[in-house]
């Protein structure tokens, strides 16, 4: 398995198989070699994510901690998600926004966005992540563009986690002040992907796989990849995520790479059994990716419980959301619109900032300046 896999091969069942074999064939010696390597490849990652690495978790954690400290110092960037719309034409079996759910649908008006923004600004946030479902009528590109521009006027950094767009459409968002994109493949395992995305535009695996590269081509500065952990074998997902990231980095050398780690806690449905990850598993995945991507932003959201998030600070996680609400209007509007997933870490942004300070870490509210894009 080479470090650079072309896009067309990334979704091939044969690649998944070879990554799986690599992971499960890894020995203690392979783990040692991966730990000792100065420059690590995805081959090393397979060993680090393997069952053979489990007895060596303390060593993984220590190596990841040292690298994170060296590259990021004692800092964690705080951001907040802002859901603009929960309208959706997809039927993802695991998602609260899926079209078959009978929830109250809402798409925020400009005035409503302003109210939410004011609340978030009061909480000191300067980094914002805007989210929508996939419904181009409810939340068109022009709508998202206008929302980005409104946020850009008041916040330092505005990223989006929205439906896949064309390069030209991403360029429109960049021009409005969007500097980051989060887009998860959900699963790199094609058969599982097909099962949990039975209908709607998201059913197209290859389309989604190519999307992060289109965003990078449009000049989005930071792109975060990820898989919805629990759908397929996380050890293999981790290797595929890394290959996707490696491809992105080689193709668009200016783009800053990040990884997110959304962990599915409920049955995904569609006849797919949840493959649950323990916190130890998730910790191993985060350590492995840190060791192979020393400078990548590693993001841990409020899906995870407070104690675990606190522990992962310093080990590898460099970005955290705080005080999140996952329904449109959830901050200041008292909305009863449906939420995407249940938040586990319910601490306020101020409480999370205090936690970081108590651990000797600086909560970074601002790590980007509008001047770069103005």
């Amino acid at each position, binding site marked *: 398995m080479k470090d650079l896999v072309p896009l067309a091969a990334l979704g091939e069942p044969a690649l998944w198989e070879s990554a799986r074999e690599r992971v499960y064939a890894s020995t203690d010696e392979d783990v040692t070699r991966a730990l000792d390597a100065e420059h690590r490849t995805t081959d090393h990652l397979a060993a680090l994510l393997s069952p053979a690495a489990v007895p060596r978790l303390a060593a993984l954690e220590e190596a990841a901690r040292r690298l994170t400290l060296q590259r990021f110092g004692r800092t964690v960037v705080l951001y907040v998600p802002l859901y603009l719309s929960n309208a959706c034409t997809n039927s993802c079996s695991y998602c609260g926004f899926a079209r078959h759910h009978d929830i109250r649908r809402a798409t925020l008006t400009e005035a409503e966005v302003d109210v939410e923004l004011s609340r978030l600004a009061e909480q000191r946030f300067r980094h914002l992540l805007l989210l929508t479902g996939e419904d181009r009528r409810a939340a068109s590109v022009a709508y998202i563009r206008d929302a980005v521009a409104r946020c850009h006027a008041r916040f330092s950094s505005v990223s989006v986690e929205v439906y896949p767009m064309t390069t030209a459409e991403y360029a429109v968002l960049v021009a409005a002040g969007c500097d980051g994109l989060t887009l998860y493949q959900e699963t790199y395992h094609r058969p599982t992907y097909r099962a949990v995305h039975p209908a709607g535009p998201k059913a197209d695996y290859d389309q989604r796989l190519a999307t992060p590269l289109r965003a990078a081509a449009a000049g989005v500065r930071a792109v975060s990849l990820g898989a919805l952990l629990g759908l397929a074998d996380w050890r293999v997902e981790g290797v595929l995520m890394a290959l996707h990231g490696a491809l992105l980095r080689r193709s668009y050398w200016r783009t800053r790479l990040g990884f997110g780690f959304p962990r599915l806690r409920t049955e995904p449905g569609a006849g797919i059994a949840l493959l649950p990850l323990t916190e130890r598993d998730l910790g191993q995945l985060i350590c492995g990716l840190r060791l192979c991507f020393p400078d990548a932003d590693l993001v841990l959201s409020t899906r995870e419980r407070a104690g675990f998030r606190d522990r992962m600070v310093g080990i590898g996680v460099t970005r955290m959301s705080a005080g999140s609400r996952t329904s449109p209007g959830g901050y200041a509007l008292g909305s009863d619109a449906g939420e995407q997933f249940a938040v586990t870490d319910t601490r306020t942004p101020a409480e999370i900032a205090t936690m970081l300070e108590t*651990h000797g870490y600086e909560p970074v509210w601002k790590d980007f300046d509008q001047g*770069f894009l103005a």
Partner: protein
Amino acid sequence: MVNQVFDDKLIIAGRAFASRLLTGTGKFGQPEQLRAALAASGTEIVTVAVRRVDFENPEDRTLAAVDRDRYLLLPNTSGARDAIEAVRIAKIASAIVGHRWVKLEVTPEPDFLLPDGVETLQAARELVAQGFTVLPYMNADPILARHLEEAGCATLMPLAAPIGSNRGLRTADQIRIIVEQARVPVVVDAGLGAPSHAAAALELGADAVLVNTAIATAADPVAMARAFALAVDAGRRAYLAGLSARGDRASASSPLVGQLGKVAP
């Protein structure tokens, strides 16, 4: 000799500094630690990333920790990917800090953060034309150094190794050439991981060093700041004292050559 060291000042753009150790403000976890480390380092020039500072917030941790009467707060353009962004960030910075000194950084590649020589030179020309005192972060490229000096830069800031890597003076041979040819101060920036690296840079004739990661991420940043201060002082004194030549062959510590000259043939 002692007096020579005593009066030995670092002069940048006509301004004199007693300390030859510049420090950064990144990667510190606690503001008290940053404040104490700055004091222990004896530094007089402190860099700060514009992208990190919330200038609208007077309680911003970095701003609050840096006493502006005591230190020259030197904004950097870190995060800029090209000349246009760097110039824009420099202008924003100068409006806020109230002076026109800027550490120019153009690093389009997000992992190793290596400086883009082409864009840096273009930004330097523009900023100098607009009256800025420009201190450019650069690869250790002697020809680029000539261009940047001709563009009117106040210093040259070649890297020792990729930023944050703590790998030491990897570019020593090129820095030696830059030092030999420069008419402005040469500040070795980035990659110095230990006080001995800083001392080595001063020994080979660099005028100053900039250290951030090695101090900020040390187990005891305050003690490490002091160690760097001492190393910089030692390296400078060694440079001024004139290091003995290095050679491959052993040389007697009581040389005969001078004695032989006095012996009648």
